[in-house]
């Protein structure tokens, strides 16, 4: 559904997108009205694809009704989670899919202005989207009186400057307003005080793209895929030790091992699976045992001890150096911490330096306890969840791959290819 037109440049034009049923979603939404559109999305059970999995229809219904203040829809296209590359593909192959999703979302929440916040490094995607948006404006699909409905919806592209933290919803709002990209304290929640102090809703690219299809076909239609708690389809970004990495769209609930072995052609060189990070770097690491029965839906991955996140499946075979991978991740989070909250500012850096020392063969067993304790101190103690996101891989890797750490600490032996 979402990836139907990937690889087909014709879908980048209004005509090409209409040829596959595009812009019927917004037309139907305008016909059935705001409330019915929200009800459709609620009925579909669509959950936010940015990582948290919050029900989209419910989020939309938080927006105040009959308020005189302007409402904003913010589309989070600051896709920066390590291992994630789904939004980029949606934008560069099917920009109109996103534009239509933005129109549906804006209409449903009563916003006459939508901002698409693009990751600074998305040069090609931004160009494709800008061209598509220009055409959509020219065709009367965006702007004043869209499709002759009397409804005005403008869309503005805003390119970030390349900061992971600006993908956090309130960090994104600050950045959009020209402030430092620092997450805000909640409450107040964005639906009450969001961008520019106005009621705002923020949705991921994939969420809005899916909403366009739901608007066209209705909520029940979407439930033909997926599980009761995780309806619909999902793009899985598979990277790491597989023969055929890439984006794959499957119904939620798809078995993880089938994805790795059948769809992605298994692990190169006949190596055995060692670990999988199923949802982008910010979730606990699973060992091979955890993976065996894991199904890729919100509840399935949770049952396996991790989180689906944004479904970015990072596969590591037996040659992987877990300590190095975790250190590499820690470095990323330390570099991207905005620096507001003490546990994150100091904790991510400190953890990185301890991990580096262990990797360099100068670690002690006490360091592992310190790392776990630091990680616990970084969990639930800050404004946003950036430091929690590092705590999870640290704690889970020490729990599941303690031997790898000990080999380095006791014998200076690196497990896996250095």
């Amino acid at each position, binding site marked *: 559904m979402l990836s139907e037109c990937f690889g087909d440049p014709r879908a980048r034009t209004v005509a090409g997108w209409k040829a596959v049923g595009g812009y019927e979603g917004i037309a139907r939404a305008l016909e059935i009205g705001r409330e019915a559109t929200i009800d459709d999305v609620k009925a579909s059970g669509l959950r936010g694809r940015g990582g948290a999995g919050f029900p989209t229809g419910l989020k939309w219904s938080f927006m105040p009704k009959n308020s005189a203040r302007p409402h904003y829809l913010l589309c989070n296209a600051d896709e920066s989670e390590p291992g994630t590359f789904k939004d980029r593909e949606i934008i560069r192959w099917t920009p109109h899919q996103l534009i239509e999703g933005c129109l549906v979302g804006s209409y449903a929440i009563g916003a006459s202005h939508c901002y698409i916040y693009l990751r600074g490094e998305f040069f090609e995607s931004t160009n494709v989207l800008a061209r598509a948006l220009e055409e959509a404006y020219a065709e009367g699909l965006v702007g004043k009186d869209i499709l002759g409905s009397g409804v005005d919806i403008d869309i503005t592209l805003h390119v970030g400057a390349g900061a992971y933290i600006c993908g956090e919803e309130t960090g994104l709002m600050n950045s959009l307003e020209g402030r430092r990209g620092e997450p805000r304290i909640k409450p107040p929640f964005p639906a009450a005080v969001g961008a520019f102090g106005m009621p705002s809703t923020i949705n991921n690219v994939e969420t809005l793209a899916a909403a366009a299809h739901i608007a066209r076909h209705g909520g029940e239609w979407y439930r033909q895929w997926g599980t009761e708690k995780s309806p619909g389809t999902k793009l899985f970004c598979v990277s790491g030790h597989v023969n055929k990495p890439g984006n794959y769209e499957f119904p939620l609930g798809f078995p993880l091992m089938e994805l790795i072995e059948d769809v992605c052609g298994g692990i190169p060189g006949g190596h055995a699976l060692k670990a999988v990070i199923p949802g982008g770097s910010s979730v606990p690491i699973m060992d091979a045992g955890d993976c065996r029965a894991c199904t890729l839906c919100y509840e399935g991955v949770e049952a396996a001890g991790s989180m689906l996140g944004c479904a970015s499946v990072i596969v590591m075979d037996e040659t992987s150096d877990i300590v190095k991978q975790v250190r590499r991740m820690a470095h990323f989070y330390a570099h991207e911490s905005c620096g507001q*909250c003490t546990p994150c*500012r100091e904790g991510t850096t400190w953890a990185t330096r301890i991990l580096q*020392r262990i990797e360099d063969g100068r670690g002690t067993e006490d360091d592992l306890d310190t790392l776990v304790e630091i990680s616990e101190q970084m969990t639930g*103690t800050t404004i946003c969840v950036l430091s929690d996101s590092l705590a999870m891989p640290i704690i889970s890797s020490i729990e599941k791959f303690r031997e790898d750490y000990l080999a380095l600490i006791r014998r200076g032996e690196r497990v896996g290819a250095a």
Partner: protein
Amino acid sequence: MADNGRKAETVTLTMDGQEVTVPRGTSLLHAAESIGTEVPHYCYHPGLSAPAQCRICLVEVEGAPKLQPSCVTMAAEGQVVHTDSPAAKRMRQGVLEFYLVNHPLDCPICDMSGECMLQDYVFDEGREKGRGREPKRVFGRDDFGGDVLYYGDRCVMCTRCVRFMDEVARDSRLTVVERGSRAVIDTFFDRGLEGASFAGNVVDICPVGALVSKDFLHKARAWDLDHTPSICPNCSHGCNIELHTRDNLVQRLKPRENQEVNGHWMCDYGRANYEWMNRPGRLEAPAVGRGSDRRAADWREALELLFASLSAAEGDVALVGSATCSNEALAGLVALGEEMSGGEAGRVFRSPRAADEVPLPGFPLLVRRRDLVPNSDGAELLGFERAGNDDGQGGLEHAAEHGGVVIVLGDELVDQGEEFGANASLFVYLGTFDTAAAANADFVLPITTFAEEEGSFVNAQGRVQRFQQGLRPPESARPAWLVLGALVAALRGEETPGSAPEAFARLADAHPAFEGLTWEAVGDRGAALIAEAVHG
């Protein structure tokens, strides 16, 4: 909670097992304060917005999934809060350890040592031994301009200074640059704090030794300083301050919170002007006789001779006061004039005046006033008329040539020549320094400065404010209210006022503007005069 459409004005919650009732909208941090519990905090400051980013004020609220920042979590009815639960304590210990990972622990050479919130909290609750083994991050020192130096290594990134400049001074000159653990406070390119009017406050609100005063750098240890509640003498706004003294010298001025006057703040002009309080070369002993007849005398002799001269004096009396003097001293001078048989020939005072006022935009009550003296309003209430120009000079032609009695109190007469008072039948000079213009004085009497005595001023808001004695005066200098009070008492045949409060009580009896005020009512926060009396 029963919601009948109208919310109660107060909420009652349980804090550390104790029931507390606070006004609705009170933060948990303040609710804790009301039962005498200090919840550690860095980024929160009562005069600034609360970003809840230092994360050390987290407390446990029963029913909440995570610890809550007490600075921005409002007290709610029936809430059960633990500031000292194992979870809260463990978290605080963890945050303190994070702070110390990169902190240089250079307390022995840090000016903040002894009044540092990091030191205090770590001593209270920190781990016994740090676990950090990595080399510490080094930023070095940065001159922010003005009186402010920044030690990045000591910084806890609470951003109080940035928020002060943004929200209170409304003069955004500081910002956070870089992010994560590389973040530091910095100025915008070469535009530092030089020329800002209120930047010195960032040193006061810095919870650690990251922002320090160049003027105070390595001058004294915090624990060696005595703190005396006082009033800033450098303009007529009368910011509440503390004199920080050591070795009988004022080392620095610090603002003392008073929401009616100056909030938590004071201006850089006022803060920087204290060296005059330490000026050497003071008048040491009373002297009697003009010109070559001048000789030192002890107070008893001087006052007896002066009493006799005053009783016998002919002609009317010209009074020259000073707005640097207390209400008690000025009222003593007025009372003395009233006792003179020849009647009065006018009361004047002079004061240097700045061209403009300097307001603090984010706390509009606080204005650096034009009058650069503390008691011009008190002097005017007591019937003194402003004379001279905006440099505090000139305007004494009448007194200089007056043929009757001339009494000068507190005005150093720097612009006057030796001929001043040459025609006077009796010329009395009460001052802190000898001056050429006192050559013709029959009596030169050494008095104390405001820093060396107790007393009160009236500020530009019409508020009476008390100050206390912070310095030991030179050997024989006496408060002017005592000298003048003794003379008036002798002339009237009554008791000499034994203290500043007694002198104030007499002043309040004699002057309608001060009616009904007592020394106790003025207290250490001050008290407003009745508006009609001030402006009527």
